[in-house]
């Protein structure tokens, strides 16, 4: 029997892996990948909880919204990365520290 | 203002005077000091002259003489009770000879410091403070007052050794200071303990009065140091025994007894001559005086049970000190060790708990007082001339300095207990008292007395050996011709200082009654105090 907790644990694992990638990776693309993983983990939670909301289908609906938003975010993010790459000739965020003065 | 207070605080006036006078009047300091000590000596002689010998003292205030009692500190501490500290001074047969001795030795000390030229202001001021403290110790009857004087004494000595001393003066001064401070801190603990155990029968308040502490009736039942129904113990040792041991320890450092003596040679060797004189002449006596006045009088029950150990320590000190003196190559160090040996006799005599032994111990203290002072002065004379004290560097001084040799020989023979001199009376009666102890069943076995008498033999050995090595034979000096010219015979000032000391040694040797008659009543009283516990 697959309970709610099963999903939640898996999603937590994925989320944390994504989190690690976001925090530790030296490539903007991998950071983006990390974000995707986190979003996926969130979607999994939506879906898992949505199982108990037959009336509104809130979980699945928002999962769809989230997927769309993620796709949009990836698109924008990749565009930014490409721009940055063009400007700095690197996608390692450590080397991109022009944000500070 | 009674006579004793004048005696105590007279040097303080001198201190003030010296401090007030500008440095340009440097030359007058020593005259001031000399004048005041002379005055003090005169006062003490007056005290001696008016002393009523038949009164005992010890634990009866009525039997004390020249008593002054003023309320000093009165404080209501609420739940703890009232703090009652008196300015209580008085003299009995135990303290009188020591007071006279102290004034005399002080006089010698001031005379010996005639050539001090390193900041004489501070020197003489400190010397006078020391003088006050010493007088205070010998006449204080309030334990708190006693302690205050005891502490006041430390400081000037520390500076006198540490500033005016020899090469390793700081080391010696620190050593001396730490040792003595250790003793006095321990003493303070017991004082506080006693304070809470004893009440003044008149006012009902806790008191520091030593005389009240000597009366078993004044102890609060169940208090820490109570006589009867005392269940207090520390690590299984009864509280009163602890108190006695700790107090004894404090005074034993001063005496000094053998395992605690190591400050003495260092302090003596490094101290300037006058300080050595005072150290040996007065300060060591404070130890003996403290044992009699404090340890024995306040804890007579313990004194009666522990005297075997005390006597053993005394005998060990005698032999150990003498043997160490035999091994010395430094004249001053030798005399320092001889002091250890001679003070061992004091302890043995005290521990014998016989009238002969106690009186002999007191006499030995007095005699050792000015004899060791004279000896240290004599070493100082030599050191002044050539700045060397190494025994093997001198030979045949007799033909070079006949007067000096005569004085040294007299002092040596007096110290080694030649009859006719005071040390003989002291040592002989200590030995006799120790022998007598078995008949009186005070618990000191005879072999200890025999051990002590071997110390007399050893003292003859090291003194005579030194005499032979340094003074007899053909003149041969380490420093050659330079020394030969530097080693002039005694001058008048030195003779004036030495002569009275040695004359006194002779006088007391021939007429010991000068001391014994004043002592006797007190000694008997003390024996009576202890006897019930034997």
């Amino acid at each position: 029997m697959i309970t709610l907790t099963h999903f939640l644990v898996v999603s937590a694992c994925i989320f944390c892996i994504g989190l690690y990638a976001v925090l530790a990776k030296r490539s903007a693309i991998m950071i983006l990948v990390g974000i995707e993983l986190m979003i996926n983990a969130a979607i999994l939670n939506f879906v898992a909880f949505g199982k108990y909301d037959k009336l509104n289908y809130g979980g699945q609906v928002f999962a769809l919204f989230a997927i769309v938003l993620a796709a949009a975010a990836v698109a924008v993010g990749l565009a930014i990365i490409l721009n940055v790459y063009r400007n700095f000739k690197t996608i390692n965020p450590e080397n991109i520290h022009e944000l500070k003065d | 203002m009674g006579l004793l207070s004048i005696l105590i605080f007279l040097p303080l006036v001198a201190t003030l005077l010296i401090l007030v006078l500008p440095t340009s009047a440097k030359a007058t300091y020593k005259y001031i000091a000399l004048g005041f000590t002379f005055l003090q000596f005169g006062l003490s002689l007056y005290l001696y002259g008016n002393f009523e010998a038949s009164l005992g003292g010890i634990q009866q205030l009525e039997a004390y003489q020249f008593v002054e009692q003023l309320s000093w500190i009165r404080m209501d501490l609420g739940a703890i009770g009232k703090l009652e500290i008196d300015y209580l001074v008085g003299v009995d047969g135990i303290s009188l000879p020591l007071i006279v001795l102290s004034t005399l030795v002080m006089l010698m000390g001031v005379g010996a410091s005639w050539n001090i030229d390193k900041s004489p202001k501070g020197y003489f001021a400190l010397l006078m403070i020391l003088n006050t403290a010493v007088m205070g110790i010998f006449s204080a009857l309030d334990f708190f007052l006693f302690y205050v004087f005891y502490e006041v004494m430390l400081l000037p000595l520390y500076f006198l050794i540490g500033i005016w001393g020899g090469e390793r003066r700081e080391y010696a001064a620190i050593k001396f200071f730490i040792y003595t401070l250790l003793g006095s801190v321990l003493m303070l603990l017991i004082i506080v303990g006693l304070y809470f155990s004893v009440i003044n029968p008149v006012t009902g308040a806790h008191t520091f009065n030593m005389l009240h502490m000597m009366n078993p009736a004044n102890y609060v039942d169940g208090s820490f140091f109570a006589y009867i129904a005392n269940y207090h113990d520390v690590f299984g040792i009864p509280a009163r025994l602890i108190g006695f041991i700790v107090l004894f320890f404090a005074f034993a450092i001063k005496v000094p007894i053998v395992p605690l003596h190591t400050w003495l040679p260092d302090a003596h060797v490094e101290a300037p001559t006058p300080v050595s004189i005072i150290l040996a002449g007065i300060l060591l006596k404070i130890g003996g005086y403290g044992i009699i006045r404090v340890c024995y009088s306040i804890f007579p029950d313990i004194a009666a049970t522990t005297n075997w150990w005390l006597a053993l320590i005394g005998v060990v000190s005698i032999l150990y000190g003498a043997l160490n003196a035999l091994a010395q190559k430094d004249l001053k160090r030798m005399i320092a060790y001889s002091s250890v040996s001679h003070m061992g006799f004091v302890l043995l005599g005290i521990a014998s708990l016989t009238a002969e032994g106690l009186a002999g111990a007191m006499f030995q203290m007095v005699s050792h007082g000015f004899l060791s002072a004279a000896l240290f002065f004599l070493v100082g004379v030599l050191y002044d001339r050539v700045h060397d004290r190494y025994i093997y560097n001198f030979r045949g001084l007799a033909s070079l300095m006949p007067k000096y040799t005569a004085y040294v020989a007299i002092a040596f023979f007096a110290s080694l207990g030649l009859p006719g001199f005071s040390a003989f009376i002291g040592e002989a009666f200590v030995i006799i008292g120790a022998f007598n102890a078995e008949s009186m069943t005070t618990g000191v076995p005879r072999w200890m007395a025999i051990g002590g008498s071997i110390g007399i033999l050893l003292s003859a050995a090291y003194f005579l050996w030194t005499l032979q090595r340094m003074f007899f034979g053909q003149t041969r000096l380490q420093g050659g011709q330079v020394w030969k010219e530097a080693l002039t015979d005694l001058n008048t000032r030195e003779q004036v200082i030495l002569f009275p000391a040695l004359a006194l040694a002779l006088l007391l040797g021939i007429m010991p009654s000068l001391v014994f008659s004043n002592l006797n009543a007190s000694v008997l009283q003390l024996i009576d105090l202890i006897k019930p516990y034997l």
Partner: protein
Amino acid sequence: MESLLFYAFAGMAIVSALLLVNIRNTARALFLLFIVLFAMAGLYLFALADFIAITQILVYVGGVLILLIFAFMLSNKELLDDLQSTSKRFISLPNWQALVLAFVFLSIMIYSYISWSEHIPQWIQQAEAKGKMILSTDNNIKALGFKFMTQYVLPFEIISVFLMMALIGAAHLSRKEDNK
């Protein structure tokens, strides 16, 4: 059987994700992401969200992943150098902070899930009790269609506009600017 499959998918997702974050080669990492996303889609199925799973595959695998690969390829040359220069260690030193943080976060979450599972929220209990759960026999796609067009029509429209804005913005950003 069902739970075995679930565990297989879950294991695949987690292991692949772990490999993903630890692999140095970005290209491989992206392919591992592909696997992760597939596995996730499989997991959605177990949550009875078949439409979401399909959308996941379509949008992510078909769109996002392609995009990422494109971007990777565009910045490839520099990226490879960069990868070479980084530390060969399995976990390079500055990463340990991230690792610790992630672990702490994970343990917090798992702890809270476990403590939470002991007293499940009321609405879930009610749903379970009343049988108002999505069942595997339900037609989810139809229900979703109805919901989108009725109850969620406004968010649906907004997200559509938003998506378009994003796409236009992305295109604008990534266009070559000669005048700069």
